[in-house]
């Protein structure tokens, strides 16, 4: 295979909730160890697109999808693929921080390992992932304290650490900073820069500056249609589509 290989390749993806089709055929490629930003107005299908990538979409009753989605050139939706296994390779961080309230900080990070009975030194994993998520220094003295005692920004970085602990190859982030203050947001953005060395990242964001700052490529969705995708610089300075230009310059949305 020729480098740089595509980590993910999406071809003609359609997705629906019951009779309501919300993604009308989207195709794009995501190179390995790059950051793809997905932008677009609310309700245009960004979250749905993301949730198709780790097969969380199909868990909603009546929801389904068609088209091809390849991870390392293998079909995500092939009969031989176990969605549970797949979700260990494709991690997800949600819009609202959702740490497990019954678990301590450390046990939140190791939750994926413990619940899946992965053997090994979990304490070491906890420290490494908390360091990766830039949270270690703030919590190293209270690893056994409840996770719910952390601030919103800390909780979100904890959720990132929790996602990293199962060693995914791809990290999906659905507006990970929308509930955070500017300082916490900056920390999460720095983190994305770091994580890009090792992971392929897809991030949904409402914030144009954020998309421009953190991503290598950007995809613009509008009303369930993938209008345009390409290098971030091109999307923001010289888009091919009028609708993209209108959106990134703030004329609508």
């Amino acid at each position, binding site marked *: 295979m020729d480098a740089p290989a595509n980590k993910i390749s999406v071809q003609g993806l359609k997705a629906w909730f019951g009779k309501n089709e919300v993604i009308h055929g989207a195709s794009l490629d995501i190179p390995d160890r790059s950051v793809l930003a997905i932008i677009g107005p609310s309700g245009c299908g960004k979250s749905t697109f993301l949730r198709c990538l*780790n097969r*969380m979409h199909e*868990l909603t009753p009546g929801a389904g999808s068609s088209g091809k989605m390849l991870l390392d050139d293998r079909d995500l939706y092939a009969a031989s693929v176990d969605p*549970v*296994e*797949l*979700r*260990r*390779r494709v*991690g*997800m961080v*949600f819009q*609202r921080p*959702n*740490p*497990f*309230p*019954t*678990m*301590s900080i450390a*046990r939140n990070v190791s*939750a*994926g390992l*413990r*619940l*899946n009975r992965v053997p090994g030194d979990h304490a070491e994993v906890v420290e490494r992932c908390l360091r990766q998520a830039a949270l270690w220094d703030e919590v190293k003295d209270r690893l*056994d304290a*409840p996770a719910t005692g952390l601030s919103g920004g800390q909780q979100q970085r904890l*959720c990132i650490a*929790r*996602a990293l602990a*199962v060693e995914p190859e791809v990290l999906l982030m659905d507006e990970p900073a929308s509930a955070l203050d500017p300082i916490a947001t900056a920390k999460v953005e720095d983190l994305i820069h770091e994580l890009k060395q090792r992971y392929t990242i897809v991030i949904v964001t409402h914030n144009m500056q954020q998309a421009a700052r953190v991503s290598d490529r950007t995809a613009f969705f509008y009303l369930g249609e993938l209008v345009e995708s390409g290098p971030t610089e091109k999307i923001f300075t010289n888009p091919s589509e009028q609708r993209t230009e209108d959106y990134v310059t703030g004329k609508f949305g």
Partner: protein
Amino acid sequence: MSALRRRNAVNAFWTAACGAAVLLALLPLASLLWLVISRGVGGLSLDFFTHLPAPVGEAGGGVGNAIAGTLYMVGLASLVALPAGVGAGVYLAERGDGRFGSAVRFTTEVLAGVPSIVVGIVAYGLLVVPMKRFSALAGAVALAILMVPPLARSTEEFVRLVPGTLREASLALGVPAWKTGLRVVLRTALPGILTAALLAVARAAGETAPLLFTALNNQYWNARPDQPTASLTVQIFNYAVSPYSDWHDKAWSAALVLLLLVGLLNLAARLLARGRGGRTA
């Protein structure tokens, strides 16, 4: 300025009115506690907790067998009712959106509203009549039937209170759905479920009507499920309706014991509801 003064006056009036309402609500409770404690405490002794009842006119004696009988029958009932109630509640929360779920939910609602004496008659017809004898088993069945519906409903509510985002977080970590249900969703709802279970046990311990013609009573210790069995509540009833004044005193003391037992269970339930939720997983 005068508007402010007026507002302060209105505020003071309603604060006082609410305080008075609270006092009014607490009055019956306080007088109940006072009456039971003041009239019951004199008869309490170690013997009262451990001895068999004494015949009329004889001093001493206790309600040891009644305490044991209550614990025995409530324990038997819990053995079946707690798993059944919690299981039904979890089912309703997780899979209860279809027709069958609605039917089950409707049934539990109706059952929860059935007066306990009616449940007693049912247990009488089901067990006492065919077995031709009153028994601890019949009492326990009546108590179990009473415990299941409210426990199922509160379990369902506690499970539904667990945010869907926690389930998603776990699934997104590649944890299978069944394990997510057990280790994340149920685990998060556990303090609530335990509280509901303890309250169901406490409620069962305080029931009289369903035991009157199922377990009846017994002057002696009994550990056999097919024999009549004493209980605190029926013993209180018998003491209270008797014409002897020393038995009336015993009714008060036994009532105090029952109050302590139920109070302890409620306290434990509260501590569970408050204390958990933190550290362990």
